[in-house]
């Protein structure tokens, strides 16, 4: 038993005194004799030699199997041993086996989203949206869902590091205090604090104290993808820094100009929900109409009724052109805005006409937050002129806005560092050595400071250059507060004690301010001082959000200033090749590069995983003679980057779009070396768009794993779609798209016992955002497989989103310059006549007696894969290898598993279960409560719960009043491949586009 005890001793929470890191102790154990013997006794002698590290898939190193245990991991096909540790004393309110839920908040740049987090025995396992929070309304994005994996990332900062060697908090504190005392004596001269912009009132209160304490210190903020264009634009248009907050549901016509209204940015979850609420073709209000004008495809463009390409950097010129069209039709606008440009007049005239025909205040013009201030100002003026102010656009005071150029702060910091004026630099989060504008050479400058402290939750390129690295708490481990763009106040509440004894930014800041405090005290005191009393605190703690804290202000348009700003709008550059930098929907600014769930999530449009690419339009690729995935060198402003090409239909010509956040070198084992680092091309003058680029084809191809290699429906009735006019003429159009003979079942029908579960997915609402995909992965313990395996076609997502392009050019169906895009989430359809059930020789996939589910019995499965072959929907996923690496998986990563769902071994088939664990929990609760039926709405599968647009509805199809029954009764309802007589329980509601009648050819 001693050897087994040894393994157990790799305690999740290392004792700080023994001075060993988690990793070192595991290695240590792997090298002990007992352990070696244990390995060899459990697995045949010599067998471990077979596991040649060179030939093994590189994935095996990904999730923590890169030490001696790896051989054990790959060979372990036994059912794992499990140990149960009962509570000696049961904590109050805790029933072992039942999850608990706490409200908290996740802040990412400007986006503040309230969450409700599920915890099992004190460890958070699943994130859901907080319906009370205006930034969520219950929905979550993939990034929120991925937070769990980041929390348990074994590559996090687990120890205080001093000059790269492990140290401890007492040593750190001694050094830190010494520096602080010295700096305080000099009134802070020589102190540089670089922090990430924060939306926390407590943070700013503390920062104020620090400023008072160290008046001569330099305190700057830097976020590579934050953008103050809107507030700067508001300063021009309204003379004060305000944030526009949209009421998308009120708008009949929405015009998104270079704006990813639905897919990213603050309140995007809310906006998606509101947009989707107006996609019911039968609603008395009528459907809204979304127009998108953009250079690079976004989920918003894909969801739009009309999407047109405009050149990169032409948003301002386009708005002026639109203004001219509006003015021509009699709209009163400040003089000097309108100016015709070279845009399709037919489109803009139709749009202008529509904007003016709609009821006043029922339209909305949105420009992307990256656009320069003058473009924002024009949009404000247009919305104002269309009467949208206080109707579809309201203005909330900007929270701690940064004035001037977005890179001003980091530029100042770099200058001070370069001049040697900095004695001590304290970096509160962030990774400027990686993501600061490349012309600053921040990494080099950083080395000139004598003392460098970096508080960070994961070691990165910057911490590699720092003298002291301080473990930072993950947001699920810390106390905090946050203010959303509409002013809503919410609390950040820890779900777990800091796993690695980290400190939060607030705590470190209070330390700098001279009074080290606990995060809880800081937040609570600040709350009590500024917001209310103890009772309110308790309520906010429970709800996660302070209701009624949103604030809006009146604005007055300064017409002259807008007119003046309009004259500064850049002229379209249609000569040179341009590079567009994009915030990635997966790794964000690069901070989630070590998150396998997010890395493996297919990008909504390209469906690329694990890498970024140089996105070019088909025409540009043809002109430059580029093949997909071919290596190219992109040069701009004397800087160059080599990466793979990805041909993206619908992108503006002569534009290369590259996602930021890849090419990390110090992200960790999952994230290092994925894709190419676009920050290398990015300078402070051209943060989002660089002109005059050159693209040179190189030899060779890049590994660019995609989950979908074929993007056309081949004329098959898969995603069924009609225009609103066609729908009105024949609401049953979707059902009529397939003709088939009468369907006769081969086997007797299943008897319906109890409630029967079904799902309806409204394709009119789906924006392909991936929230459901990662929610499903988190809920159901779905492994990641790594880029090589994704390329081989082995991604494990139970729920995938198929993306199809269709040409809008009736003359040439292969012309994909302006394609339409449809998304279709597909998971197990839970067929009544399931082709998989018949063919399984061992009856491992069978119909459930109650509920009518297509059950998958992992213990019975021997892995013939016959079921997957015979599945017409191709939703079954096979564990070709031991993807979970259970034996080698770090213990801390194992904490992320949902204990309600089996972790599957190698050689087993798996698939969507409609979250049967949630169904059964609800049935149990209903039974305990004495109900004979689970009420509608009680069961929500993970996908439906995450979906920001409520596209997925689940429930009992035998209850005519249930939401799912109502949806299935709609005329648009159809069954995918229903002609095969599979009788799927999941059905789709056909997509109805609402194009402007004038533009329908």
């Amino acid at each position, binding site marked *: 038993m001693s050897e087994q005890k040894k393994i157990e001793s790799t305690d999740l929470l290392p004792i700080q005194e023994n001075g060993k890191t988690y990793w070192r102790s595991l290695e240590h154990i792997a090298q002990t004799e007992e352990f070696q013997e244990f390995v060899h006794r459990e697995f045949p002698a010599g067998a471990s030699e077979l596991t040649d590290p060179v030939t093994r898939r590189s994935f095996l190193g990904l999730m923590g199997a890169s030490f001696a245990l790896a051989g054990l991991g790959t060979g372990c096909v036994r059912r794992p041993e499990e140990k149960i540790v009962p509570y000696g004393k049961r904590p109050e309110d805790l029933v072992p086996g039942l999850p608990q839920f706490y409200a908290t908040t996740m802040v990412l740049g400007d986006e503040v989203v309230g969450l409700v987090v599920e915890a099992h025995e004190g460890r958070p396992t699943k994130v859901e949206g907080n319906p009370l929070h205006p930034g969520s309304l219950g929905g979550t994005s993939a990034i929120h869902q991925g937070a769990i994996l980041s929390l348990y990332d074994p590559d996090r900062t687990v120890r205080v590091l001093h000059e790269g060697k492990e140290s401890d908090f007492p040593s750190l504190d001694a050094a830190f205090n010494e520096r602080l005392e010295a700096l305080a004596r000099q009134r802070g001269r020589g102190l540089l604090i670089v922090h990430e912009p924060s939306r926390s009132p407590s943070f700013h209160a503390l920062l104020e104290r620090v400023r008072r304490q160290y008046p001569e210190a330099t305190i700057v903020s830097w976020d590579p993808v934050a953008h103050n264009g809107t507030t700067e634009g508001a300063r021009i248009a309204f003379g004060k820094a305000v944030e526009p907050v949209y009421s998308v549901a009120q708008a009949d016509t929405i015009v998104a100009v270079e704006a990813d209204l639905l897919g990213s940015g603050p309140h995007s979850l809310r906006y998606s929900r509101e947009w989707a609420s107006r996609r019911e073709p039968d609603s008395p209000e009528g459907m809204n109409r979304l127009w998108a004008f953009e250079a690079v495809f976004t989920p918003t463009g894909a969801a739009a009724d009309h999407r047109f390409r405009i050149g990169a950097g032409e948003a301002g010129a386009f708005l002026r052109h639109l203004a001219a069209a509006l003015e021509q039709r009699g709209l009163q606008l400040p003089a000097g805005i309108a100016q015709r440009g070279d845009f399709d007049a037919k489109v803009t005239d139709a749009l202008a006409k529509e904007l003016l025909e709609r009821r006043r205040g029922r339209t909305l013009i949105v420009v992307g937050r990256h656009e320069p201030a003058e473009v924002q100002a024009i949009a404000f003026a247009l919305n104002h002129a269309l009467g949208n102010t206080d109707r579809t656009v309201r203005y909330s005071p900007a929270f701690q806005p940064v004035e001037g150029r977005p890179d001003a702060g980091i530029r100042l910091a770099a200058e001070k560092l370069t001049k040697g004026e900095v004695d001590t630099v304290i970096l509160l989060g962030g990774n400027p050595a990686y993501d600061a504008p490349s012309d600053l050479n921040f990494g080099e400058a950083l080395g000139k400071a004598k003392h460098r402290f970096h508080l960070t939750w994961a070691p990165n390129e910057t911490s590699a250059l720092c003298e002291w690295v301080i473990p930072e708490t993950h947001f699920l481990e810390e106390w905090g507060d946050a203010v959303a763009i509409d002013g809503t106040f919410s609390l950040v509440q820890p779900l777990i004690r800091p796993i690695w004894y980290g400190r939060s930014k607030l705590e470190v800041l209070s330390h700098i301010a001279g009074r080290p405090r606990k995060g809880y005290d800081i937040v609570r005191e600040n709350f009590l001082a500024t917001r209310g009393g103890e009772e309110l605190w308790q309520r906010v703690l429970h709800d996660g959000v302070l209701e009624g804290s949103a604030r809006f202000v009146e604005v007055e348009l300064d017409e002259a200033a807008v007119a003046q700003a309009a004259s500064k709008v850049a002229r379209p550059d249609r000569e040179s090749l341009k590079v567009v930098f994009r915030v990635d929907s997966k790794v964000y600014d690069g901070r989630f590069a070590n998150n396998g769930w997010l890395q493996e999530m297919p990008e909504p449009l390209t469906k690329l995983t694990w890498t970024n690419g140089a996105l070019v339009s088909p025409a540009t690729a043809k002109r430059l003679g580029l093949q997909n995935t071919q290596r190219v060198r992109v040069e701009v402003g004397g800087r160059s980057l080599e990466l793979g090409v990805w041909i993206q239909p619908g992108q503006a010509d002569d534009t290369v779009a590259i996602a930021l956040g890849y090419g990390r070198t110090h992200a960790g084992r999952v994230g290092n070396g994925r894709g190419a680092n676009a920050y290398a091309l990015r300078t402070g003058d051209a943060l989002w768009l660089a002109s005059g680029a050159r693209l040179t084809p190189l030899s060779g191809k890049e590994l660019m794993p995609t989950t979908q290699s074929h993007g056309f429906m081949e004329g098959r009735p898969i995603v069924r779609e009609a225009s609103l006019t066609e729908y009105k003429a024949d609401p049953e159009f979707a059902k009529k798209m397939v003709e088939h003979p009468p369907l006769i079942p081969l086997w007797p029908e299943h008897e319906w016992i109890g409630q029967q579960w079904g799902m309806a997915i409204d394709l009119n609402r789906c924006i392909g955002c991936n929230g459901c995909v990662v929610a499903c992965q988190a809920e159901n313990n779905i492994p990641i497989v790594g880029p090589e395996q994704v390329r081989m076609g082995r991604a494990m997502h139970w729920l995938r989103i198929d993306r199809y392009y269709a040409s809008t050019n009736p003359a040439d169906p292969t012309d994909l310059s302006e394609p339409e895009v449809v998304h279709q989430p597909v998971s197990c359809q839970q067929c009544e006549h399931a082709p998989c059930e018949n063919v399984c020789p*061992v009856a491992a996939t069978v119909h459930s007696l109650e509920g009518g589910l297509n059950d998958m019995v992992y213990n019975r499965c021997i892995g013939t894969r016959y079921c997957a072959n015979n599945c017409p929907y191709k939703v079954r996923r096979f564990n070709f290898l031991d993807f979970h690496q259970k034996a080698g998986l770090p213990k801390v990563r194992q904490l992320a598993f949902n204990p309600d769902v089996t972790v599957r071994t190698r050689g087993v088939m798996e698939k969507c279960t409609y979250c049967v664990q949630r169904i059964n929990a609800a049935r149990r609760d209903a039974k305990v409560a004495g109900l004979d039926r689970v009420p509608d709405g009680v069961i929500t599968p993970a996908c439906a719960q995450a979906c920001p647009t409520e596209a997925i509805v689940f429930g009992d199809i035998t209850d005519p009043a249930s939401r799912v029954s109502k949806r299935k009764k709609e005329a648009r309802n159809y069954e995918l491949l229903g002609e095969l007589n599979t009788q799927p329980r999941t059905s789709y509601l056909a997509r109805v586009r609402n194009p402007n009648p004038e533009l329908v050819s």
Partner: protein
Amino acid sequence: MSAPSIATTKIPIPPTPPDEKLVTGGLTFSDVTNLVSQVTEQKTPRNWYLAFAFSLALLGVFGVSVLWLLWEGTGVWGLQQPVGWAWDITNFVFWVGIGHAGTLISAILFLFRQKWRTSVNRAAEAMTIFAVICALMFPGLHVGRIWMAYYLFPLPNQMGMWPNFRSPLLWDVFAVGTYFTVSLLFWYVGLVPDLATLRDRAKTRTRALVYGLLSLGWRGSMRHWINYEKAYLILAGISTPLVLSVHTIVSFDFATSVIPGWHTTIFPPYFVAGAIFSGFAMVVSLMVITRQVFGFKDLVTLDHLEKMNKIILLTGTMVGYAYAMEFFIAWYSGSLYERYAFINRAFGPYAWAYWTMITCNVISPQFFWFRKFRRSIPVMFVLSIVVNIGMWFERFVIIVTSLHRDYLPGSWGYFMPTIWDIGLFVGSFGLFFTLFVLFLRFLPVIAVSEVKGVMPEADPHHHAHEEVEEKAPLRTAEAS
């Protein structure tokens, strides 16, 4: 009776035409016995060691491929979603198909009194059994959790679970299992008299003991012969439907599915024809080598080979017809998916495999319309190998091209084999050849007793002479 009297005996109906002399070279009974038996009795020839070493090396490849597969998981192959079966099941069907010729030659041709079968049936049956052993490896190895593979068998268990009797894969287990058992019995029963011959000729105690045990006390008494003939006939009767049923049921794996390109009613006859096609080709390949190496040219004559080539031509053309009919039905069905599946087969990413198959299976056998080619050893050797390449591709085309693009284009993929796919396939030839080379060395390669039975000497007709002479003009066998 004396030998001259036999030589001059007037043979009754049916007269043997000169080109149907089943044993040439004027061999006597004892020549036949000696010729076949001495192969097992001589000092092992050096070439045999070479062949054995080569086979063992290939078997080693098989072993390594299996070990790595079991160690790492099915993921060492190139399988993926949507192609859940590729080389594994292709190889299974390929080997099962090859395994068809043996029983066909033994059983069906036996029942149809095709006497020419006697010189090739032993080797063909051995080939069947070894091929089925190879075939059985693949469904066994392809499962994800091989240590749970016993769930496939209807064994009583504590879970009270039966396998799913609706699954064609389970039918496969029974069909191939039955086929293997009956083929093995059939082969062994046929071997008994010859094993006894080897026992009787044994010069060492070991040989006497081993062959003595294997020959089950055979003494060649009339009662033994009567029982033997009955048993052989019954087993032939049992085997005959199996020849048709095995590949029919193997084809059900595909035909009962919903996948376009699989869901086809023509599959059972088409698969059986293809199996006979490939099986005969394999017999030709092996017999051409064997008769060359062991000097059996008078036992396995060109006439035998030509007959087999005719069957190759016949079944090859049937297979070609099936290919054409599949396309017709795909068009005629009006099914969008069905049509696409076949257009994709011929012109999609796997067109190269499809046209390889057509060239090998439909075009190459057409040479056998010409007698010259049918009787040319080099031509038939090359063509028989080409046919088996083609038949491997047929299964690959059916399995992979249907799976890689089925209903939802968003899930389409492209399968590429890994070195382990290839290793296991190539290695399975190692298993096959090792068994075959051992068979060549230690067992009578040609059914001695049966060959003797079809020699003119075996059919003296003492009592019929007068009648024949009275009623019909005298005809004499043209003694060579």
